[in-house]
């Protein structure tokens, strides 16, 4: 992950800002839940920013965070998903096991690529937030252990965003808050519940201030002055825009709107100056920033720089403004890489300096977050870094190459004789005036042909006055040796406060700041006139007076500025000794007198050495003849002494040097072991951090578990209540049959009380056989199968259904038993009663069924599909089919000839639910296929619920009645006809009588007789039911009954006459008889009548031949005129019966022969007869 590095940022010096609502990133760990809940409680939907929470979560457990937090606020709480958009007034929380970055307003989740314990999810999140949203974001660190988030907060502040840290006194765990504060990542330290309000106000204010400050130059000048006073650093030539921004920010954080107020604050709060200072200084740097430039550096600078150095040679590199050290280590890595390729190994010294002590501390530690892996190629990372708990640590060889120290290069004298200066973070903040003064310093500090490596957007004009470009695009320059400029130091002016110097207490307070040249001259004037040289602590010449050439000489080859090396001949040892003694002695001046010969010239010298500030010294070569005053008598050295002791001294000096070297080595070794201790310490710390990580996660889990336990308690309570309410005797047993718990109802059967829990079942008394129960339980435990058994209480009063079930946990493990007792006595009783009732009902049902079956009343039950559901024998008889052939058969099958009459009413009844009674059905059934019969049928609905399930049928055979009725009607009609006929006949006789002339009495008498004859015939016919009568019977009443059997003889077969023929023939016989009685044989007592008849057939059909033979009577003549009787006889026999009558009159009597076709006598009218 790159730090903020955009060229645009440097050129514009505007803080990058995302457009849109601010995004607040919150990091928390152990104890964070509480803190976050109190933070969140102040958030309402009117706060137009989004809150993103990253908490250290145990990836193996689901987090209940969303649930728990949702209850605390009205703002929506959402669990983040990859690709989700950030929305205003919403809280987002990270799911376990993922790391979060933002890209604009979109959130991205990814897996951790570091093992647990080495992760810094809050850092990587806040860094991504700072990069994407710049000044438009807020970083918040809440309770937690460890130091995750400290770097991220710094990044946020550097980007112009706001950093808030929970007050360590309030947080449950103060590790993370304190780390953030210590790392300079906090603008405000406050309780978590106040944070939301502060954020709101900050964003309201911040936009206004920038413009207000822009015109106020006086204010900025005064602030810079104050800063100088407080910190000793002069920011008056820092880029204006930068200063404005940083000041504006501080003012926003403090809630100050007016510049004067802020000035007052600066004065009154001595910490504010430091905070502003820290804010200004916050810059970010990274390894191998601008990769291409480093590549060019490697080939164009490093390589040639190291290439032609021998093993004793020293390569010196200076990195001013090194901040947290990444640049310096980058250069060092390049050097080390290059050394591998060479045979020689020159000594490399890298001096890395900065004014920010905090940054230097980090640089010295050499520990960087794992995010550096993005900037460093893998092979280099592996070679030069060791993975540690919090990221990577530089290896010892790398560390040894760089020396970090506090140095302000705009006012402190520079390092000298440098091969390379790398200054890439600082100059951009300088205004033009300052930049103009810095270049000459660099020029002076570099060796001839030395290189300068700058940052991407330095002011080119200034550079090119002093340097030739090697690669302008990569900002690599080479010292233009032709340019000679005096070094003007110090560049900055001003005073500073003694009391606020945090760092190196050995540094003496500065007095007046005057140009150094003046000072030197001053010293020289006050003390010496002679030639002098100024050297630094390494004995390197910094300054010489003009006549120094007498004493110092530049040797051939590459110039070496070590004064000892430069001293001529015998002066060399002298100078060395002088310097050696000077470093240990306490007096201000040290001197050595010497008399000798240099280059053939006799000389008498007093050498003085005087300490200067910044560990410099002035060496004076006082060539005098006059001896000075007693009080400053120099030590006189003769040549003799010097000759004798020279060797000895030299040896001593060399031994001393060796001793010093040893000391130096020891010191270095001490430093090394110190470093080792440091690393052990750090190892322990990282283990500690790991444990802390785990602890944090556990705490989080614990919080969630606590909540879960509460819920579980509630569930258990519910269960308990449920069991209690079911009123079922229940026992819960363990695997060893001890009682775990029981329902209240269990006490009905068992003598248990609360304290019986954990007692063995066998110790409990109960109403059942406990031994049996235990046996069952044991069996269930063994088999894992439930057993149900009925058991009777010992006193025999109740039956119980005992159910013993294995108790299964949620994972289906068996863990004891559940024994349930349900009293079944009542149940049993009910069952028994039910049984009895059922049997009785069945019996009744059977009786009814039988009744139904055998009832002569034909009955049936029809289903909606017109099939017979049931029927009885009676109906079977009506239908003429066996009963079994009815059931289930369709009515169309059973009584096909009646369906057009019966189907309709059945359907109607089904539909209407109304019975249809006394329907007349006429037709034929199989019982009597030829005889049309009639029935009266009742159809009635059978209800089941709301619908008609069947139609019942009841049938009455009314055929007989019908027939009888028909017959009766016919008879009545016939009777009517007959009576009418009879009356007609009688009226006809009467009419005839009326026409008669003569004696009325005789006429009437005749009439009466005729009517009687008619009546007689009718009587006869009646006895024969008007069907037919025998011929003989016709004759009998008319003849024998009247005249007696002595006079009448009847002889003939049985011949039947139809009713009509009987009446006709009857009348005929009557007339014949009447005639006989009047005129014939029957008129006298002696007369006899014989009637003989027979049947003959002489080819013309069968004839009835009747002979009427009268004898013994008086003479009889044919009546003169044919009377009615004759007419009647003729009409009957001839016209009606189609026969013949032959009459004879002779002396003996009347004789007639009647011949009538039998056919005419036997035309039976089917309407005749009443049978």
């Amino acid at each position, binding site marked *: 992950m790159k730090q903020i590095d955009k060229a645009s940022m440097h050129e514009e010096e505007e803080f990058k800002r995302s457009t849109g609502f601010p995004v607040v990133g919150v990091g928390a760990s152990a104890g964070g839940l509480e803190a976050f809940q109190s933070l969140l409680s102040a958030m309402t939907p009117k706060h137009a920013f989004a809150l993103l929470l990253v908490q250290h979560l145990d990836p193996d457990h689901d987090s209940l965070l969303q649930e728990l937090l949702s209850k605390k606020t009205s703002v929506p709480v959402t669990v983040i998903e990859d690709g989700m958009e950030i929305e205003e007034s919403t809280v987002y929380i990270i799911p376990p096991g993922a790391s979060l970055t933002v890209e604009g307003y979109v959130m991205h989740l990814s897996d951790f690529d570091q093992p647990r314990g080495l992760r810094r999810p809050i850092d990587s999140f806040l860094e991504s937030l700072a990069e994407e949203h710049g000044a438009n974001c807020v970083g918040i660190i809440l309770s937690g252990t460890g130091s995750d988030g400290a770097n991220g907060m710094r990044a946020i502040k550097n980007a112009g965003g706001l950093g808030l840290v929970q007050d360590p006194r309030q947080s449950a765990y103060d590790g993370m808050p304190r780390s953030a504060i210590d790392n300079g990542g906090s603008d405000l330290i406050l309780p978590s519940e106040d944070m939301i309000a502060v954020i709101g106000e900050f964003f309201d204010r911040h936009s206004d201030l920038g413009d207000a400050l822009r015109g106020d130059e006086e204010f900025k000048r005064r602030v810079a002055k104050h800063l100088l006073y407080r910190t000793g650093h002069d920011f008056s030539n820092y880029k204006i825009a930068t200063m404005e921004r940083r000041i504006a920010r501080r003012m926003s954080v403090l809630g100050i709107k007016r510049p004067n107020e802020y000035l007052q604050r600066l004065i009154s709060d001595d910490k504010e100056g430091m905070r502003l200072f820290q804010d200004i200084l916050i810059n970010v740097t990274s390894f191998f920033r601008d990769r291409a430039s480093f590549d060019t550096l490697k080939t164009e600078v490093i390589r040639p720089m190291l290439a032609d150095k021998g093993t004793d040679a020293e390569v010196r590199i200076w990195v001013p403004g090194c901040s947290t050290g990444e640049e310096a280590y980058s250069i060092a890595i390049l050097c080390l890489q290059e050394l591998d390729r060479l045979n020689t190994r020159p000594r490399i010294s890298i001096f890395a300096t900065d004014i920010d002590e905090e940054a230097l501390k980090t640089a010295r530690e050499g520990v960087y977050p794992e995010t550096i892996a993005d900037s460093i190629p893998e092979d280099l990372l592996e070679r030069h870094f060791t993975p540690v708990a919090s990221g990577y640590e530089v290896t010892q060889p790398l560390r040894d190459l760089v020396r970090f120290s506090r140095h302000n290069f705009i006012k402190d004298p520079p390092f000298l004789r440098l091969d390379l200066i790398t200054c890439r973070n600082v100059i951009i903040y300088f205004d033009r005036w300052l930049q103009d003064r810095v270049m000459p310093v660099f020029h002076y500090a570099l060796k001839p042909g030395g290189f300068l490596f700058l940052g991407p957007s330095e002011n080119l004009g200034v550079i090119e006055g002093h340097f030739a470009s090697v690669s302008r695009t990569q900002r690599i320059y080479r010292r233009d040796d032709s340019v000679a400029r005096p070094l003007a130091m110090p560049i900055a002016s001003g005073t500073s406060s003694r009391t606020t110097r945090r760092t190196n207490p050995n540094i003496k307070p500065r007095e007046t700041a005057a140009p150094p040249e003046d000072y030197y001259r001053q010293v020289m004037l006050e003390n010496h006139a002679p030639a002098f040289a100024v050297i630094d602590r390494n004995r390197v010449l910094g300054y010489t007076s003009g006549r120094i050439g007498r004493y110092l000489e530049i040797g051939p080859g590459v110039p070496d500025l070590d004064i000892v090396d430069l001293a001529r001949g015998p002066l060399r040892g002298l100078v060395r000794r002088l310097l050696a003694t000077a470093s240990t002695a306490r007096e201000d001046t040290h001197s050595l007198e010497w008399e000798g010969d240099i280059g053939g010239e006799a000389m008498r010298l007093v050498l003085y050495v005087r300490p200067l500030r910044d560990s410099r010294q002035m060496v004076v070569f006082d060539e005098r003849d006059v001896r000075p005053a007693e009080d400053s008598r120099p030590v006189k050295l003769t040549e003799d002494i010097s000759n004798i002791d020279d060797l000895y001294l030299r040896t001593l000096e060399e031994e001393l040097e060796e001793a010093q070297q040893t000391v130096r080595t020891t010191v270095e070794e001490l430093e090394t072991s110190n470093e080792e201790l440091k690393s052990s310490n750090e190892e322990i710390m990282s283990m500690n951090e790991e444990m802390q990580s785990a602890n944090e996660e556990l705490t989080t889990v614990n919080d969630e578990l606590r909540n879960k336990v509460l819920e579980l308690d509630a569930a258990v309570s519910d269960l308990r209540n449920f069991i209690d309410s079911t009123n079922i005797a229940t026992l819960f047993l363990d695997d060893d049959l001890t009682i775990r718990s029981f329902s209240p109802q269990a006490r009905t059967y068992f003598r248990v009380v609360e304290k019986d829990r954990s007692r063995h079942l066998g110790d409990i008394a109960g109403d059942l056989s406990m031994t049996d129960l235990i046996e069952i339980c044991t069996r269930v435990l063994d088999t894992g199968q439930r057993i149900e058994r009925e058991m009777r209480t010992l006193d025999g009063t109740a039956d119980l259904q005992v159910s013993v079930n294995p108790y299964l946990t949620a994972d289906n493990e068996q863990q004891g038993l559940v024994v349930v007792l349900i009293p079944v006595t009542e149940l049993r009783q009910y069952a028994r009663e039910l049984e009895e009732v059922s049997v009785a009902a069945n019996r009744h049902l059977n009786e009814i069924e039988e009744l139904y079956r055998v009832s002569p009343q034909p009955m049936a039950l029809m289903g909606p599909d017109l099939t017979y559901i049931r029927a009885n024998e009676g109906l079977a008889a009506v239908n003429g089919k066996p009963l079994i052939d009815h059931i289930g058969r369709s009515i169309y099958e059973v009584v096909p000839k009646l369906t057009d009459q019966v189907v309709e009413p059945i359907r109607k009844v089904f539909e209407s639910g109304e019975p249809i009674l006394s329907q007349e059905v006429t037709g034929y059934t199989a019982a009597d296929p030829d005889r049309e019969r009639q029935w009266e049928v009742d159809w009635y609905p059978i209800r089941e619920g709301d619908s008609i399930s069947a139609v019942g049928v009841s049938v009455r055979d009314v055929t007989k009645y019908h027939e009888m009725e028909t017959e009766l009607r016919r008879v009545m*009609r016939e009777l*009517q006809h007959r009576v009418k*006929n009879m009356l007609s006949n009688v009226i006809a006789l009467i*009419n005839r009588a009326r026409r008669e002339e003569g004696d009325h009495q005789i006429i009437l008498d005749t009439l009466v007789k005729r009517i009687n004859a008619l009546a007689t015939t009718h009587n006869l016919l009646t006895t024969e039911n008007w069907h037919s009568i025998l011929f003989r019977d016709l004759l009998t009443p008319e003849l024998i009954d009247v005249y007696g059997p002595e006079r009448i003889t009847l002889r003939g077969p049985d011949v039947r006459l139809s009713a009509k023929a009987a009446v*006709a023939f009857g009348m005929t016989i009557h007339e014949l008889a009447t005639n006989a009685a009047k005129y014939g044989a029957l008129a006298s007592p002696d007369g006899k009548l014989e009637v003989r008849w027979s049947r003959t057939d002489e080819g013309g059909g069968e004839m009835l031949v009747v002979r009427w033979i009268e004898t013994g009577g008086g003479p009889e003549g044919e009546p003169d005129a044919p009377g009615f009787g004759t007419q009647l006889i003729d009409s009957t026999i001839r016209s009606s019966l*189609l026969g013949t009558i032959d009459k004879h009159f002779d002396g003996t009597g009347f004789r007639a022969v009647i011949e009538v076709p039998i056919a*005419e006598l036997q035309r039976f009218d089917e309407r005749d007869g009443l049978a």
Partner: protein
Amino acid sequence: MPDLSTKTVLYLEDEILIGLDGELILKDIGFGTVLLCHSLEAAQAYADSQPVDFALLDINLGDGRTSLSFAHHLLERDVPIAFASGYNRSEDLTADFTAPVVVKPFSTVTIRNAVTKALEGTD
């Protein structure tokens, strides 16, 4: 009432007495000739052998036969007819016919009306 003295009436009645009486009544109302017959055969024989101006037919002829087909026969020969019935309702047997129906026993009046009606129908 047209002059019946020249007309011959064919009178079919299976009851002897009623027939004889009816014959006299027909003579009373003026028919010149009354051909009385008591069976369909006799009637048929008369109809075939003699011209007939009018026929009075008893509907039911006692042996289950009716005079109806004979009536049709006569009507085809344009002989006006009247029916005599012994039943109150003629049982719709004469539904096909427009001929008048007298109820037996008939009197001079009823028969005269029937004859008039029948003969007018032919005019």
